[in-house]
C-alpha cells in the first residue's frame, strides 16, 4: 500500500490552502478532490475577505499565496456595500461600507471555478516539489485505521495510507459522517444559498454601479423579497457578470417551504434589482416555416452566427482591456470603428432577419448549496483521531447580519491545521492530545471563532449609526430598549457585555427573527423608502431551462438513497430541492438524481454521498 504523510480530502478553497501551507512548510501532502478539476464543484456568493483583527491574528489568503493580487483571477475589489430594505416598489437604502471595511484589508468578489482553479495551480506546483500534489476526479469512500495509520479507500484508486488527514470536504462532509466525528447538521444550523450568474458587459457594470475599473459594489436586500423567510438577498458585481442570490435559514424554509428558485426570482423581480441586471438582448424572430428547408437552415445558422458576433463585439466594446486588444491586434483602428461594426451587425440583424433588440437580462448559471451557520454548528473540537476538520466541513461559517464569510474562515482554519500537522510530522506524534488539541487551541485564537461566539460592539455600532435615519417608532416598538442602550457608548459596552453573558444561543432567536429580516425592513421601506419603478419585466427562465443550461457528467448510479419515502422531511424536499429532483408518486417521495447539484439540502434524512469521481455537477462559474 502506498504511504503518504498527509492526505487532504476535498479541494475547495480550504483544502487547497491546507495543501499550499503544508508545501510552504516543506511537508509532503496529497489532496484528493472528487471533481474532475478543482473548482468545478464549488459554489460561493461570494466575497473573499482578508482581515486585520484588532486582537489576535488571522491567516489571510495572501499569507498562503504570496502571489495573490498579482495575477489572481479575482473579480472586483468591493468598494461599496449597501443594504436595501424593500417593500414592493419602495426601497430604503443604508450605506454599510464601513461594516464591510471593518477589520478588513480588502474584500474581492470571486467566482470559485476560476479562483479555486488558480489556487489549485499554485498549490499543486508547490506540493509537487515535496513529492505530493492534487489527485482530482477521485472520490473518497471510506476511512479505517490500521495501527495509527489511516487507510483511505476511494471509488477509483487502490487504497493508500496516511499519517494525518485534513477533512476539507465541505458542509456535507462524508468524512464527518462516516467517522461519526459529528452528527449531520440539522436545519437549525444551516442556511440554503441559491444563486444565479447574470451576464453584463464590463463597462455597463461600471457605469450602472458608479464604480471604476478596479472597484466593485455589493448590494444586500431584506424585506418583502424574502417572501417572509429569515435571510436575505445579495448582488455582487464581478468583472463582467453579476452574482445574484439569496440565502435563507433552512429552519425557516422547513416551516413554510418555498421553492428555492422562487426566492431568487422574487429578488430578480424587485424593481431595483431588475434595473441593476438589465441589458440589451437579441431575440430571434421565428423562422418562416414556409421557406424551403435548406433556406430555413441557412437562415438559422446565419442569425446564430451574427448574434454571436454581436455579443462578442459588444462585450469587447464595453471592456477596456478587450477593446485595447482588438485595436492592438490591428483588426480595428479605433473604438469608433468597433462601434461602427457593432452597429452594422445590429442593423443587419434587425433589417435582414427581423431580430428584435429588447431590454431583458441574461442568466448564465444557476446553483445552490447549504451554508453552515458557525454560531450554531461550529465543531467544538474540530478533530477526530488523526483527522482535523477545516472550513465548511467543521461547520465554521460566519453569519452576522448581512455578513456571510466562509472562504476566509476556511483558509484561516487550513493554515492552522497545516501548522499543527507539520508539527506532528516533526515529532512523529499524530495523537489527538498532540495534533488535534494543538489545532483546536489555535482555532480558539482565531477572530472567526470569536465572531461565532460573541457580539462585537464596534461592529454593531456601525449598523446603529447607519440606521440613524430610521424612524425610532418602527424600531422603538420592538427594540426600543436595546436601541437606547446601544446608542450610548458606555451603555453599549454594558449591554453587549450583558448580551454576551446571556450567550448567543439565547440571543439568536431574538436577533435572527422574522421581525429583523422581514417586518422591520418592510415598514422602513414603506415609511421612508424611495419609490422605484422598473422599466421592463425580466423574463425569468423556468427551473427546467436553468437545469438544461447546467453542465453535468452523468452518473448512472444514484449517489443518494431515500431512506423513508414517507417521512415529513422527505415530503418537504419535493419543494426544497433546488433542482426539482424529488416528486411524489402515490404517497411516496421518489428521487431522480440526474439533475442533482449536490447542495446537500436533502442530506439529513437520506444516505447521502457525493457522486463518484468526475461525476455530477460541473459549475462553470461557481
Amino acid at each position, binding site marked *: 500500500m502506498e504511504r503518504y504523510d498527509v492526505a487532504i480530502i476535498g479541494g475547495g478553497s480550504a483544502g487547497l490552502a491546507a495543501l499550499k501551507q503544508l508545501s510552504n512548510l516543506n511537508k509532503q501532502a496529497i489532496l484528493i478532490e472528487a471533481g474532475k478539476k478543482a473548482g468545478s464543484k464549488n459554489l460561493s456568493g461570494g466575497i473573499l475577505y482578508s482581515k486585520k483583527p484588532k486582537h489576535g491574528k488571522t491567516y489571510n489568503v495572501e499569507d498562503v499565496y504570496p502571489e495573490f493580487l498579482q495575477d489572481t483571477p479575482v473579480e472586483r475589489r468591493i468598494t461599496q456595500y449597501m443594504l436595501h430594505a424593500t417593500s414592493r416598489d419602495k426601497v430604503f437604502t443604508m450605506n454599510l461600507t464601513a461594516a464591510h471595511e471593518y477589520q478588513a484589508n480588502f474584500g474581492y468578489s470571486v467566482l470559485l471555478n476560476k479562483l479555486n482553479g488558480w489556487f489549485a495551480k499554485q498549490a499543486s506546483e508547490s506540493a509537487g516539489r515535496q513529492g*505530493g500534489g492534487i*489527485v482530482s476526479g477521485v472520490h473518497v469512500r471510506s476511512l479505517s485505521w490500521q495501527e495509527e495509520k489511516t487507510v483511505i479507500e476511494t471509488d477509483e484508486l487502490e487504497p493508500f495510507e496516511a499519517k494525518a488527514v485534513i477533512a476539507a470536504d465541505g458542509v456535507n462532509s462524508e468524512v464527518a459522517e462516516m467517522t461519526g466525528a459529528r452528527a449531520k447538521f440539522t436545519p437549525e444550523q444551516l442556511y440554503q444559498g441559491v444563486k444565479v450568474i447574470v451576464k453584463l458587459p464590463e463597462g455597463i457594470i461600471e457605469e450602472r454601479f458608479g464604480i471604476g475599473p478596479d472597484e466593485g459594489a455589493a448590494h444586500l436586500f431584506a424585506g418583502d423579497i424574502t417572501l417572509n423567510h429569515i435571510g436575505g438577498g445579495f448582488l455582487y458585481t464581478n468583472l463582467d457578470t453579476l452574482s445574484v442570490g439569496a440565502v435563507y435559514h433552512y429552519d425557516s424554509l422547513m416551516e413554510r417551504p418555498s421553492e428555492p428558485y422562487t426566492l431568487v426570482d422574487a429578488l430578480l423581480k424587485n424593481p431595483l434589482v431588475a434595473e441593476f441586471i438589465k441589458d440589451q438582448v437579441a431575440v430571434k424572430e421565428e423562422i418562416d416555416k414556409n421557406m424551403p428547408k435548406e433556406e430555413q437552415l441557412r437562415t438559422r445558422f446565419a442569425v446564430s452566427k451574427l448574434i454571436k458576433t454581436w455579443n462578442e463585439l459588444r462585450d469587447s466594446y464595453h471592456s477596456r482591456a478587450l477593446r485595447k486588444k482588438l485595436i492592438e491586434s490591428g483588426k480595428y483602428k479605433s473604438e469608433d470603428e468597433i462601434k461602427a461594426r457593432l452597429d452594422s451587425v445590429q442593423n443587419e440583424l434587425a433589417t435582414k432577419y427581423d431580430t428584435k433588440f429588447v431590454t431583458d437580462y441574461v442568466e448564465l448559471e444557476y446553483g445552490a448549496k447549504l451554508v453552515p451557520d458557525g454560531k450554531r454548528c461550529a465543531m467544538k473540537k474540530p478533530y477526530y483521531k488523526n483527522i482535523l476538520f477545516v472550513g465548511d466541513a467543521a461547520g465554521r461559517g460566519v453569519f452576522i447580519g448581512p455578513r456571510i464569510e466562509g472562504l476566509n474562515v476556511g483558509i484561516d482554519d487550513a493554515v492552522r491545521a497545516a501548522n499543527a500537522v507539520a508539527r506532528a510530522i516533526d515529532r512523529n506524534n499524530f495523537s489527538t492530545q498532540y495534533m488535534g488539541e494543538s489545532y483546536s487551541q489555535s482555532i480558539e485564537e482565531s477572530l472567526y471563532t470569536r465572531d461565532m461566539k460573541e457580539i462585537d460592539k464596534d461592529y454593531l455600532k456601525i449598523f446603529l449609526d447607519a440606521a440613524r435615519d430610521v424612524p425610532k417608532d418602527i424600531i422603538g416598538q420592538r427594540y426600543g430598549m436595546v436601541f437606547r442602550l446601544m446608542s450610548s457608548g458606555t451603555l453599549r459596552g454594558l449591554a453587549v457585555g450583558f448580551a454576551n453573558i446571556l450567550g448567543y444561543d439565547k440571543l439568536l432567536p431574538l436577533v435572527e427573527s422574522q421581525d429583523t429580516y422581514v417586518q422591520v425592513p418592510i415598514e422602513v421601506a414603506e415609511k421612508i423608502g424611495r419609490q422605484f419603478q422598473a422599466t421592463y419585466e425580466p423574463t425569468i427562465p423556468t427551473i427546467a431551462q436553468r437545469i438544461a443550461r447546467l453542465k453535468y457528467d452523468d452518473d448512472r448510479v444514484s449517489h443518494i438513497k431515500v431512506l423513508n419515502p414517507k417521512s415529513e422531511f422527505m415530503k418537504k424536499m419535493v419543494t426544497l430541492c433546488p433542482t426539482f429532483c424529488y416528486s411524489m408518486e402515490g404517497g411516496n417521495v421518489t428521487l431522480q438524481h440526474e439533475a442533482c447539484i449536490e447542495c446537500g439540502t436533502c442530506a439529513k434524512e437520506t444516505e447521502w454521498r457525493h457522486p463518484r469521481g468526475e461525476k455530477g455537477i460541473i459549475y462553470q462559474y461557481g
Partner: protein
Amino acid sequence: MATTTKDLNVAVIVKLEPDFSEGNVSYNADGTLNRAETKSILGPHSAIASNAAFYAKVKYGARVAVGTMGPPIAESALQQAQLLCDADELHLYSDRIFAGADTLATAEVLKAGISKVEGGKVDVVFSGHRASDGETGQTGPQTAWKLGYTFLGNVIDYNIDLESRLVRAKRLISLQGFYDIIEEVEAPLPVFISIDPSYNAFFNTVSQRLAFEKYQKEARSRAENYKQFLKVLNTQQLGIDPKLVGLPGSPTIVYKVERIPKAKASRKAEVIDGTNRDQIARVVTNMYEVLEGMVIK
C-alpha cells in the same frame, strides 16, 4: 511510489495524416482526397499509441522516443505526439528518396530509426493499429519482423515486470467467429506492440496519478519547445541501403483505388410483432438457435 527506472526504453512510431474529422477534410470532384486543402494532424491511431507510451512513462518512468517518416512538415505530428506522451526525443526520418515508399520500404526506415534510439536498446515499440489514410495495418508487423521483435497486435492493456523483463498484454481478438475476445499473453522484452483503438489507460494509484499530472505538465512545456528535442535523420545518418527504401525498395505500388460497391444485405429479417404467445415463442426459438450456433464445441 512509482517504480522509477531508467531501465525501460520505449519508442513510438507515428504518422501525420489528413484530418478526416468533419469540417477539416476536403475532397476533389472525383471523390479522391484533396491533400492540399485538407489539414494534417497526428493520426488518431498514432495518438492512441502515444497514449500507450505515456502509460509506460507514468508507470515505469520509461524514456520515450517518438519517430516518424515523412517530409519536414511531419514534425508537427512529432510535436503533437510529444504533447501526449512527454517524449524525451523526437526523430524525423526525412529524405527525398523515401518518397513513394510502400509498407515494406517504410518498415526498413523505421527499423533503422528505432535502432538509433538509445543505442538500439529499445524494449517496447508502440505503433497505431493502422493509419487512417493507408489502412493496410502492415507497417507495424513488418517493422517488428525486421527488428526481430515479438509482435503483439490489437493490444488493449499491458503491464511490464521490470525485474523479469516480461510483458503481459491483453489483446482484443476474434476467435471462431466471435468478436471481442480478450486474450492474455506474456512475452519477454523486447516487443512490438500495435495498440488497439479501444485502448484506454487507467491509472489506479495515487503515485501514478501524481506522476501523470507531473509528466503532463512537463509534456506541455516540452511540446512548446519541441525543436529542442528534434533530430532529423536522412538515409546516410540512418545508415540505410538506399536500394531498400523509397520507390526502389517497394515491391508493391498502389495501382488504383476503387470504391467498393455496396454489398447486398446478407441478413434475413423477419418481422415478429409479439401480439400473441405463438409469436413470442418464435422469438425465443430463433434466439435459442442462434445462441446454440455460437457455442464453441
